């Protein structure tokens, strides 16, 4: 008997566990998405993985106008993590629509656009424009970046204040019926109040965490290693912090939570799901292993099968205390 026929028999004997989840009204094949800024515009990863297998793709953060970004050096490794100060370099929303989104049409994977702006008006205009083309270009939803530590105006300042969070999310809510995911920053005293404000303002889901603010210094030149001085810390180093915040937010809100931060192996993803994440996003790990998203999807399926769990949704927030 050859192994393949054995496999067929096996999969006939037990039902495959359900991996489908719904977040912000978007149906996903599985709970694994890519994190904004770490997956380019999707196409960059097509040599390595079948984009059709992903739960969803979140593209590089987009602004209304093209953005040049910060001067280099922009990335630097730290123990089990990295600092980045890209500064939201991007092609702007029009180029996104014209040159980046068409490639993604052939895949049956929801595309979520991560948006940033300097002013509320910019966010609104972005949401309006993307709403306009959402059917035609397959925009499944928006992730509102109110947590970018790498741009001077806007960005993180929104996400560190509950009132500002409410205001910006609510303004976008009034503009578009598109599913809205508010992306939260960990650089706050009390993430629960921010999460609540975003929920009340009409967010359909919350994603967290964006990066922690950090710095590194070159002791020979006595200059910051990043030209921008500070950057955002990501990668396995931040996982314990992210997990704690996800659990905090999960206990606070009624909308789904998307867990992000340091996920590099299936165990990490499972920790986030058990802590309350309906879906997870994988960021920095894509740089280490371009196949990591698929490895983790397969790993989740294996864990469910081995633990006789029929539906991944059962695992969400199943932590026993």
């Amino acid at each position, binding site marked *: 008997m050859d192994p393949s026929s054995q496999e067929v028999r096996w999969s006939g004997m037990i039902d495959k566990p359900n991996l489908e989840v719904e977040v912000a009204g978007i149906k996903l094949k599985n709970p694994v998405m890519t994190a904004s*800024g*770490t*997956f*380019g515009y999707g196409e*960059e*990863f097509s*040599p*390595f993985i079948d984009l059709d297998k992903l739960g969803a793709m979140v593209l*590089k953060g987009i602004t209304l106008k093209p953005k*040049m*970004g910060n*001067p*280099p*050096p*922009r*990335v*630097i*490794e730290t*123990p*089990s*993590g*990295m600092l*980045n100060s*890209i500064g939201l*370099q991007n092609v702007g929303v029009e180029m996104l629509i014209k040159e980046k989104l068409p490639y993604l049409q052939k895949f049956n994977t929801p595309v979520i656009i991560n948006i940033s702006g300097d002013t509320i008006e910019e966010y609104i205009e972005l949401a309006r424009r993307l709403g306009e083309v959402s059917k035609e270009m397959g925009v499944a939803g928006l992730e509102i970046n109110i947590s970018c530590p790498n741009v001077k105006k806007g960005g993180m300042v929104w996400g560190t204040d509950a009132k500002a969070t409410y205001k910006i999310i609510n303004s976008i809510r009034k503009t578009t019926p598109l599913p809205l995911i508010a992306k939260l920053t960990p650089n706050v005293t009390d993430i629960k109040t921010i999460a609540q404000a975003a929920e009340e303002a009409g967010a359909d889901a919350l994603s967290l965490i964006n990066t922690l603010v950090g710095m590194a210094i070159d002791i020979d030149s006595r200059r910051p290693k990043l030209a921008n001085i500070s950057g955002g810390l990501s*990668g*396995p180093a931040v996982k314990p912090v992210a997990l704690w915040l996800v659990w905090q937010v999960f206990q606070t809100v009624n909308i789904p939570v998307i867990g992000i931060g340091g996920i*590099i192996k299936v165990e990490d993803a499972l920790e986030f799901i058990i802590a309350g994440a309906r879906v997870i996003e994988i960021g*920095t790990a*894509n*740089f*280490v*292993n*371009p*196949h990591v998203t698929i490895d983790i999807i397969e790993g989740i399926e294996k864990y469910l099968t081995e633990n006789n769990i029929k539906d991944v949704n059962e695992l969400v927030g199943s932590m026993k205390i």
Partner: protein
Amino acid sequence: MNFIYNIKVKILSKEEVAPNIFLIKLLAPPIAQEALAGQFIHIKCSKDNYPLLRRPLSIHRIDKEKGEIFILFQAVGEGTKLLAGRSIEDDLDIMGPIGNGFNIYPESKKMVIIGGGIGVAPLLALGEESIRQGKEVQVLIGALKKELVIGEESFKILGAKVDVATDDGSYQYKGLVTDLLERIIKEGWLADQIFACGPKPMLKKISEIALQANIHYQVSMEERMACGIGACLGCVCKIKTKDKREYKVKYEYKRVCVDGPVFTGSEVVWND
């Protein structure tokens, strides 16, 4: 963009060719098949996730027949030290070939290839290809001192003319490798193209010389990388481009990994 493989390849041999400088041969048929001179591979140096990120190293030599590629590198930090410590027969997780590679113009007859320190790494494959295409090749190598002069023999075997400059004068010309370039230009040996890789001050100086002599100049740039495949925008360098309306200079951050690592010298913004 060419296709990038992510494969596990076998380490066939490892040699310390100069103090702390290692030459490693890898069995990587699909990459060898498609690799161009000037491209690089992105390497997971350790077996676990520490250090976290991959390290970019140029493809030093390409043996398409045997399906082998070579890397030549200096063990300077955590990643390269771990790599230098890997054993023969070990599997190495690499991505490649990445980048645009050098552009050898069909019409060029004479080329100058300039390597500073470990900067010679990507240039041997270029030398080999140039000579295969029947170009006349003058190689200039700069190093701190005699022991750190690498590649001289390899270039000579290919049939290139090689001159060396050492900072301390312990071998051949005492001084900067850019002095050698100025000298051959002064002597009237005018190349059609200059190619260089090495420390930034050297690259910048060559840019000035090339501009003055009106020789087309290609330079292989280095920047810290995360993804290595154009996705993170971490590895940019500032490039002068002409606006559509042609008369307005525009600046742009281009990705060294996939828009480079080879750029036209006159487009690079050196003072930044």
